[in-house]
């Protein structure tokens, strides 16, 4: 499986071919950790609202590296690597907590909420024996602190110190769409983790893939919630790594392109008995019923009708990925709207009518490409570039992902 260096090539200079070894080579994981997740990227780690009070913390991940997201006494959020500077134990063990200091259970080294080492048990020994030598300088042994920015309620972190602001990382077009959803404080309505039998990149490609939406997810098209012939399109930022796919409802029409395609997904007879789920509200006043947004490398913001969620994609190995779903609403919303979101939650998540398939299709690829590491996937729908397009029948945003990936990974 370990590919020698000359086999680990990416022959095609463009973006329309993606070699399959990228999902299978054991060495890719370490390289992605180093250059991508611990490199020059902004990584979503938490919602600001998950940490309401000073001292509130949440344990999270940057790539697969454990971090602590904590609100300091000054109200600012810090992100610290969750690894003790002494002998490497995970410092915070709980998913959520509140602390004035972060104390490692192993030898009780303790850190303030900036990660500064403020306590070393028995530093001076016991009765004058043992303890730390004079050469020990506590200032050199804090928790590694990451660059952090709270952007409209979203906490991003980066191991790189000299990052541009999140807004500029997103680019103006995508930033606008983030702000559309995060236009006021939010609250968490539910959380779940979906464990996928495939490389994390297959999930991210899937999310970026506006082409599959109305084909793989037949619930979508059948009930006219969304179909490619609706007006909509995709937006891609200059880096390629960030994107939005959106659509608006129109009056459904008989669409000749669908008939030509003869898709499995167009079953006219199928109707829901209970349509409360479909009675969406136009909360944003723009008629957009679906907006899927990704931030490079592994963060998703979803609006599907009134179902709002963020998804953090965590690599767990070459062929194992966790998707952490956080469904949310607005802090100030009425109960009826929350009830609507509860009902529409049936659309999304591991059991969602239109997301269930996304859970398995990555595995369908992962297990099929074993004999094809020297071959490529073909990403040509909508051309060869990674630009915004006014159609969703395109793979432009997938090409955008690989554009950003190749640049960041130097591949």
């Amino acid at each position, binding site marked *: 499986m370990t590919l020698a260096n000359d086999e680990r090539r990416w022959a095609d200079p463009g973006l329309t071919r993606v070699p399959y070894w990228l999902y299978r080579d054991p060495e890719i994981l370490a390289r992605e950790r180093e250059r991508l997740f611990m490199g020059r990227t902004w990584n979503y780690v938490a919602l600001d609202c998950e940490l309401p009070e000073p001292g509130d913390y949440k344990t999270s991940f940057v790539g697969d590296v454990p971090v602590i997201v904590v609100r300091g006494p000054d109200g600012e959020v810090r992100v610290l690597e969750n690894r003790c500077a002494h002998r490497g134990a995970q410092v915070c063990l709980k998913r959520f907590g509140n602390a004035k200091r972060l104390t490692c259970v192993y030898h009780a080294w303790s850190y303030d909420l900036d990660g500064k080492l403020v306590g070393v048990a028995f530093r001076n020994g016991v009765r004058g024996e043992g303890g730390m030598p004079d050469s020990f300088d506590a200032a050199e042994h804090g928790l590694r602190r990451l660059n952090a920015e709270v952007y409209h309620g979203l906490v991003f972190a980066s191991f790189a110190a000299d990052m541009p602001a999140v807004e500029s990382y997103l680019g103006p077009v995508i930033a606008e769409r983030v702000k559309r959803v995060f236009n006021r404080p939010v609250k968490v309505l*539910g959380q779940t983790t979906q464990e996928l039998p495939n490389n994390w990149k297959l999930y991210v490609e899937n999310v970026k893939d506006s082409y599959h939406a109305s084909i*793989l997810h037949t619930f979508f098209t059948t009930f006219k919630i969304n179909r490619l012939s609706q007006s909509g399109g995709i937006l891609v930022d200059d880096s390629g790594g960030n994107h939005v796919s959106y659509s608006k409802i129109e009056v459904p029409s008989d669409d000749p392109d669908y008939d030509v395609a003869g898709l499995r997904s167009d*079953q006219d007879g*199928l109707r*829901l008995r*209970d349509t409360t789920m479909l009675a969406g509200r136009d909360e944003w006043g723009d008629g957009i019923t679906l907006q899927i947004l990704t931030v490079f490398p592994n963060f998703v913001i979803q609006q599907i009708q009134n179902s709002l969620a963020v998804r953090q994609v965590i690599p767990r190995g070459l062929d194992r990925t966790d998707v952490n779903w956080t469904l949310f609403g607005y802090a100030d919303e009425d109960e009826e709207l929350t009830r609507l*979101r*509860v009902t529409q939650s049936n659309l999304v998540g591991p*059991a969602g009518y239109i997301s*269930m398939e996304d859970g398995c299709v990555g595995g369908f690829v992962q297990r099929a490409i074993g004999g094809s590491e020297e071959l490529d996937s073909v990403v040509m729908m909508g051309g060869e570039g990674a630009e915004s397009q006014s159609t969703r029948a395109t793979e432009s945003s997938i090409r955008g992902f690989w554009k950003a990936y190749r640049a960041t990974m130097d591949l």
Partner: protein
Amino acid sequence: MDDMLAVARLQLDYAAAVDNDALERWPDFFTADGLYRITNAANEARGLPIGIVHCAGQAMMHDRVLSLREANVYEAQRYRHLLSLPVVTRDGDTLSATTSFHVARIMQDGATLLFATGEYRDVVVRDGEALKFRQRVVVLDSERIDTLLAIPI
């Protein structure tokens, strides 16, 4: 004891219907306005309203079965439920029961996984001749779902 065994029997029949792919019968285990929810223990403990599945009324249950049969794509799989005896309390004609479960999932290729564990929180009433669920809340112990959850628990 009679209540316990009667509820146990209802639960057994439900599990058999699900495990033997008789999903069309699944809504009939509920009253017309029955509630079926799947969520996890952490969400419940935090009072969060959204879980994994939320079916209010038989119509939504029928819709889910229809979608599983006609619209959704997922690999052939089956469950095997195993239940504890229910702990039943009676309030007038209404029975409340909590019941532990282990559910194994068996994929088409034979791979077997302890897919879900947790507790049923049931409200059972008499509906004509039969006992039915007025409410069945499935509280999963784990927040983690492998791949997807298609078939009801």
